[in-house]
């Protein structure tokens, strides 16, 4: 504990001094006058960036922030364990638990950010591969890698050095993310957060890296592996592949994010590395990861023979093939989307199979009814089954991502009575209203939506002009359903005809992104409930600590 406190306080001291000396929020405004500076109080402020005046913005930054800050705790525990050489079981369990909390917050924060982008920015999507978005994704991916490989350490006593490396990487990427956001070295839509604290962060990053890596080198001998790999086809190697893919993703995203800087340094030209680049690079990696999400849990620890493989893979693969063929026949030709849905079916069935097989075994041996069996199964090992729920959430996320491929959009000039068609939807203008509030003036168009002739209600996208910042923004109107969202934006007013410019998107399956995020959140919560096995280990640890204490006192 003492070193944990020391490390955390070192981080705290850094941020406190940055806040106090460099970017003090308590600076006061003064006006130059003949009698020296005079306190100055403007009548009105500049106002919050209108794009940020949205309800999920209240919770999105704190969530991300909790994530970023929270990753300091596992780092501090790891460093303290290295310093004291107490590299047994205690620190890794504490660290795992403390990684899940910030991991959950960071993930939720990222998702809420996507939700904000979707409902405010008005281009019909939720993820634009902006440098700052990437910066938040990086530690999340590295943290995911750690949460997986830590299981090998707990179960088999392997990969001990690697896990420390992952913790260091995750923490480093957290600070690096803050650095990217605040230093302005890459151009980003999040430029509103810029200030002149970049160089301090660079120095801090250097210190963190130097300190942690040299400490790791000094203690490497205490991190010997307890076991060897029995077979290439095993859960262990599944986790290795998982780590490989996740870190490749970290590398690819990091590379793309900092490439403009590298390019500027090497060839003197700042190139842009935007969404088209990341989509091309990240989609295959994401699909490989999705495949492993399903395949990994089907492999047994230590070694898996062909017979066992067949037992576990047959049903999920068959289900996936059925779904794949059905999709193809129903006209899905977009390869990545098809592949994604195909793999989603594979993973979903493999997870359900796990639950089903486990519950059936409990039914047979314990005579419990099915629901009771599922409950007991989950509570007996919350980590595993909570993890499966998280995987299910990831599947739903990918279902949502796949929907992006089938986006449809149109743009039209509208007035009362004009109609706009997109897919099998018809939008008809009812009225255009203008208004005024103290904060902004607005213009609103009411649209009657119908699908295949069936009326579905109205959508009311509006456009606001914020007085303080003199900035216009649009508020998107969304009619969401599990199958697809109708998403209408009032983009402006045509100067020639005076008609409203309306953009309409039909975004299939987007709702599943939010549902998947929520399921992931729930699964993480479930995995954090202490299970029976963990309680036993904790009891043993306490008894052992007491024993050590007594023997030392004697």
């Amino acid at each position, binding site marked *: *504990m*003492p*070193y*944990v*406190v*020391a*490390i*955390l*306080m*070192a981080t*705290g*001291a850094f941020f*406190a*001094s940055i*806040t*106090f000396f460099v970017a*003090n*929020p*308590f*600076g*006061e*405004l003064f006006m130059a006058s003949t009698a020296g500076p005079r*306190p*100055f*109080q*403007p*009548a*009105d*402020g*500049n*106002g*919050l960036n209108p794009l940020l*005046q949205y309800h999920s913005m209240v919770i999105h930054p704190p969530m991300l922030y909790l994530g970023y800050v929270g990753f300091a705790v596992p780092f501090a525990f790891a460093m*303290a364990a290295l*310093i*004291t050489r107490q590299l047994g079981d205690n620190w890794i369990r504490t660290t795992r638990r403390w990684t899940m909390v910030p991991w959950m917050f960071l993930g939720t924060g990222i998702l809420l950010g996507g939700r904000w982008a979707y409902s405010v920015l008005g281009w019909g999507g939720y993820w634009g591969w902006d440098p700052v978005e990437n910066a938040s994704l990086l530690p999340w991916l590295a943290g995911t890698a750690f949460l997986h490989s830590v299981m090998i350490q707990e179960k088999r006593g392997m990969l001990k050095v690697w896990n420390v490396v992952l913790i260091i990487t995750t923490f480093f990427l957290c600070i690096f993310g803050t650095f990217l956001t605040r230093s302005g070295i890459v151009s980003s839509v999040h430029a509103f957060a810029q200030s002149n604290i970049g160089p301090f962060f660079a120095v801090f990053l250097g210190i963190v890296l130097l300190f942690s890596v040299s400490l790791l080198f000094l203690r490497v001998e205490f991190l010997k592996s307890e076991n060897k790999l029995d077979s290439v086809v095993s859960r262990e190697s599944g986790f290795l592949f998982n780590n490989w893919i996740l870190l490749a993703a970290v590398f690819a995203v990091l590379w793309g994010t900092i490439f403009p800087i590298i390019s500027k340094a090497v060839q003197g030209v700042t190139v842009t590395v935007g969404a088209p680049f990341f989509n091309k690079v990240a989609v295959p990696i994401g699909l490989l990861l999705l495949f492993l999400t399903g395949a990994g849990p089907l492999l047994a620890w230590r070694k898996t023979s062909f017979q066992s493989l067949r037992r576990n893979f047959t049903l999920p693969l068959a289900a996936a093939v059925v779904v794949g063929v059905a999709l193809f026949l129903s006209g899905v030709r977009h390869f990545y989307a098809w592949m994604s849905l195909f793999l989603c079916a594979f993973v979903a069935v493999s997870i359900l199979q796990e639950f089903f097989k486990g519950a059936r075994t409990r039914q047979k041996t314990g005579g419990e009814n099915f629901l009771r069996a599922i409950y007991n199964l989950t509570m007996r090992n919350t980590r595993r089954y909570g993890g499966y729920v998280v995987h299910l959430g990831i599947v739903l996320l990918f279902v949502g991502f796949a929907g992006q491929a089938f986006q449809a959009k149109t743009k039209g000039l509208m007035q009362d009575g004009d109609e706009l068609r997109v897919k099998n939807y018809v939008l008809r203008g009812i009225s255009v209203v203008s208004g005024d*509030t*103290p*904060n902004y003036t607005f213009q609103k168009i009411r649209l009657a939506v119908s699908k295949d002739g069936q009326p579905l209600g109205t959508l009311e996208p509006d456009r606001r002009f914020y007085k*303080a*910042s003199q900035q216009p923004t649009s508020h998107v109107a969304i009619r969401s359903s599990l199958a697809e969202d109708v998403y209408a934006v009032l983009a402006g007013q045509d100067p020639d005809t005076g008609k409203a410019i309306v953009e309409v998107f039909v975004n299939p399956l987007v709702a599943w992104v939010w549902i998947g995020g929520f399921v992931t959140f729930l699964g993480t919560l479930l995995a954090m409930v202490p299970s029976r096995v963990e309680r036993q280990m904790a009891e043993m640890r306490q008894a052992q600590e007491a024993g050590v204490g007594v023997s030392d006192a004697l």
Partner: protein
Amino acid sequence: MNEVGSVGLIAALAFAAYGVVAGAMGGKLRSLRMVRSAERAAAAFFVMITLAIVALEIQILRDNFHNAYVAAHLCPTS
């Protein structure tokens, strides 16, 4: 209010610095009372940071535009 916030920040910084030293020394000397002291310094750090945040928050809610941060990011109607 700006004074309160600044004092909170500087106190937090002092506590953090003390926490680093006391924590490291407490661990090295295996001194339980020093460790306790470091833990309390961490708690005090947290309280001081909270104080600074509350000070800023009050200014935001009172639309005190004498504060540069509030003037840059707020307007009374939002």
